[in-house]
């Protein structure tokens, strides 16, 4: 029998993607596309310019410049490889074992090789597109700085493509083996914890070794030590190192074919992966059909959180309890808290490492400035967390909306529950971040109070914006909650939040500046009408950014049709 082409096997996927684009275009006109293109181009330009300036600076030093540039590329590509392996392992589990189209594909007379190649392509595309896009401005900056010429473009593609394929093959193979040992749903839980735990450890280790010392040669005993560190390969056995060597060799006019050959062992890796697939896929796929088989009593939640919430009306209480249970029973959701904890530690570590307390007057000024700007940074961190945990809340109710809409539940209660379940943990984190940062910075009581009150206002507003935009741009069809924040609505939410942070910081700076000037000049701090007016304007903005999105979100939920 003539086998269908790979293109045909993948047809449902690409046709669905095309249809989604058509629907998006008919729903939002060209505005959405234009916004996405502008944001994307701005981001690319920012990355390109930043790297270009750094590389130009390096290039001015004929001895160390190329070593430093190579080291930076090595570290960037190494982090790409780490991201790629983690994301490929998780994506491969879905595309090879849990996807909805598998029943049809496996029952059809399609041979094992086509299924392997189709699913490998799907895994590769889903987990690598972001890294591939990110590589464009980075490699462009290298190509322009080191005058790679037009030939550098196809050469870079030849170098990066196998670097993307190898982690996809390795990730798929690892998943295949794991699914043969554990049931697929258990494997997904296990992988979520292991992957995020590993990512957390890598980030923590990377930060704790303080890589910034590499750009401060005075920290080394002598220049030779420093050069020796730069010359040491970051990871000689990984494709990232081969890609670095291949790229830098081309840019410096000393092409060494070995790294490129090593990268193109990809073809052999795909063959090995396919053979492994042939041996193990059938048994793995059968095991993947097994359920998680978990009995849950759930009494603990009822007697702890349920009792604490006893004062609430029954519908709200049950709704909050339901949301908390769903979160903590979904390993892919709660395991992200591991990464969050690591990021908080790294954040505080960075603040601790700032060299601020060198002179009394300068110290005060910079401490106040850092403490103030930290509000913006903490706000951004909170926005990213809200995008991940609060923004998808309405979308995740999509399939169950039949129940909520046919019951006498007041939709305000639904929104209320979602808002507070998301806001309270976010508020605790916000106060922890701001409070501890201010303690580490040794700020004065005035800034401590301003910081804590502001972050409270911002948290209420950010959570409301996340919920409101989540309702405005719902993704009811998405199975994976992790994909919801990366949608267009998630982007609009982040842009709106950044605008809010900018506006609040601008308003507050007018008040804080008066305080800083008074202390700096040794004058008494006077809380005058202007200062109160600026604070009031910031508070009013936060209040409006809380109330309006919630109101708009409620109106939108009332108009949902299923």
């Amino acid at each position: 029998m003539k086998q269908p082409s790979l293109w045909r096997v993948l047809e449902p996927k690409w046709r669905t993607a095309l249809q989604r684009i058509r629907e998006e275009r008919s729903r939002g006109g060209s505005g959405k596309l234009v916004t996405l293109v502008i944001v994307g181009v701005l981001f690319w330009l920012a990355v390109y310019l930043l790297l270009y300036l750094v590389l130009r600076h390096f290039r001015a030093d004929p001895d160390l410049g190329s070593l430093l540039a190579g080291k930076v590329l090595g570290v960037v590509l190494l982090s790409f490889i780490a991201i790629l392996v983690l994301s490929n392992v998780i994506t491969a589990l879905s595309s090879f074992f849990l996807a909805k189209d598998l029943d049809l594909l496996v029952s059809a007379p399609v041979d094992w090789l086509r299924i392997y190649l189709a699913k490998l392509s799907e895994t590769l595309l889903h987990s690598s597109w972001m890294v591939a896009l990110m590589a464009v401005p980075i490699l462009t900056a290298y190509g322009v700085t080191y005058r790679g010429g037009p030939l550098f473009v196809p050469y870079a593609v030849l170098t990066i493509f196998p670097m993307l394929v190898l982690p996809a093959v390795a990730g798929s193979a690892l998943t295949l083996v794991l699914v043969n040992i554990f049931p697929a749903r258990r494997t997904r839980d296990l992988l979520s914890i292991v992957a995020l735990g590993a990512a957390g450890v890598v980030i923590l280790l990377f930060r704790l070794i303080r890589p910034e010392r590499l750009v401060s040669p005075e920290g080394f005993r002598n220049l030779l030590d420093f050069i020796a560190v730069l010359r040491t390969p970051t990871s000689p056995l990984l494709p990232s190192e081969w890609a670095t060597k291949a790229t830098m060799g081309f840019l410096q006019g000393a092409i060494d074919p070995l790294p490129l050959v090593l990268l193109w062992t990809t073809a052999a890796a795909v063959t090995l992966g396919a053979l492994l697939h042939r041996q193990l896929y059938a048994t793995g796929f059968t095991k993947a059909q097994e359920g998680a088989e978990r009995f849950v009593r759930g009494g603990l939640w009822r007697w702890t959180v349920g009792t604490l919430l006893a004062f609430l009306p029954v519908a709200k209480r049950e709704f909050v309890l339901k949301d908390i249970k769903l979160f903590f029973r979904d390993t892919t959701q709660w395991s992200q808290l591991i990464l969050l904890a690591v990021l908080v530690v790294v954040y505080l570590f960075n603040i601790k490492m700032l060299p601020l307390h060198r002179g009394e007057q300068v110290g005060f000024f910079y401490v106040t400035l850092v403490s103030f700007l930290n509000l913006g940074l903490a706000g951004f961190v909170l926005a990213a967390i809200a995008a991940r945990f609060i923004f998808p809340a309405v979308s995740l109710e999509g399939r169950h909306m039949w129940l909520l809409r046919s019951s006498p539940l007041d939709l305000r209660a639904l929104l209320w529950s979602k808002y507070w379940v998301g806001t309270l943990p976010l508020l605790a984190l916000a106060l922890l971040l701001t409070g501890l940062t201010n303690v580490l910075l040794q700020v004065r009581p005035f800034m401590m109070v301003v910081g804590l009150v502001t972050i409270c206002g911002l948290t209420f507003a950010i959570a409301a914006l996340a919920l409101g935009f989540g309702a405005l741009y719902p993704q009811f069809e998405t199975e994976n909650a992790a994909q919801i924040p990366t949608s267009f609505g998630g982007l609009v939410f982040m842009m709106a939040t950044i605008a809010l942070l900018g506006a609040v910081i601008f308003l507050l700076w007018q008040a804080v500046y008066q305080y800083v000037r008074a202390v700096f000049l040794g004058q008494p701090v006077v809380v005058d009408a202007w200062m109160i007016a600026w604070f009031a304007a910031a508070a009013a903005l936060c209040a409006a950014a809380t109330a309006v999105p919630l109101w708009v979100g409620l109106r939108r939920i009332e108009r949902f049709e299923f």
Partner: protein
Amino acid sequence: MIRLENVTKHYGSFVAVDDISLEVPRGLLYGFLGPNGAGKTTTLRIIAGILRPTNGRVLLGGDDVHRNPIPAKMRLGFIPDRPFVYDKLTGVEFLRFVAGLYGQDGDAVERRIAELLEVFELVSWKDELVEAYSHGMRQKLIISSALIHRPQCIVVDEPMVGLDPKAARLLKDIFRQFVGRGGTVLMSTHTLEVADAMCDRIAIIQHGKIVAEGTVDDLRRQHRAGDASLEELFLKLTGGAQVRDLVEVLGEGDGGHAA
């Protein structure tokens, strides 16, 4: 109990439900029949308050489902065709959650949950996450959830799909007893034998319009169908009688002679 007044539903230029008026009094089991895509599910979802009609209104026990939703929905139990339930809740937790949506909790709810789980033979599964349930078990759980608050009327879309014969029989008995005690059931189904055996009255919908309404005998008389079965009547009314030659559709298999 259930009253539809000139209900219309448009999806862009497509008219899914076209000016339907219908009255289902108390104590009646009412069948809602029609071919695929005729507008049955859309109509039932409008009655349940999930979809808003483009025009017209729906009254449940005298309350407009969309203008005065809380008292209207308190009377209603809705059973959808696709059993989407929260996968990470157990059966008991799901039922407790649904009872909470209707403002009910405490010992009475716990007793009611135990009763329903017993009736639908889900007791041994009650502490297991719904993600491990089969399609039929999910359907039973949803039926239980629609009954938990003791509704006055039940709107049910394709109730028999996924149920084993024992559960299907149980559901028929429950509906009959429910109607016998003054409750109202509006049921859409493709299983014409079920409709014929169970329903007091029937409406047949096609292209969003009701093309026939009454008891099965009324329909036979109206359409001069003699003693035709409900299936024949249905095919006559919905234009499905021109079935293509099956040999042409099925082709000739290796092991048999279709001709």
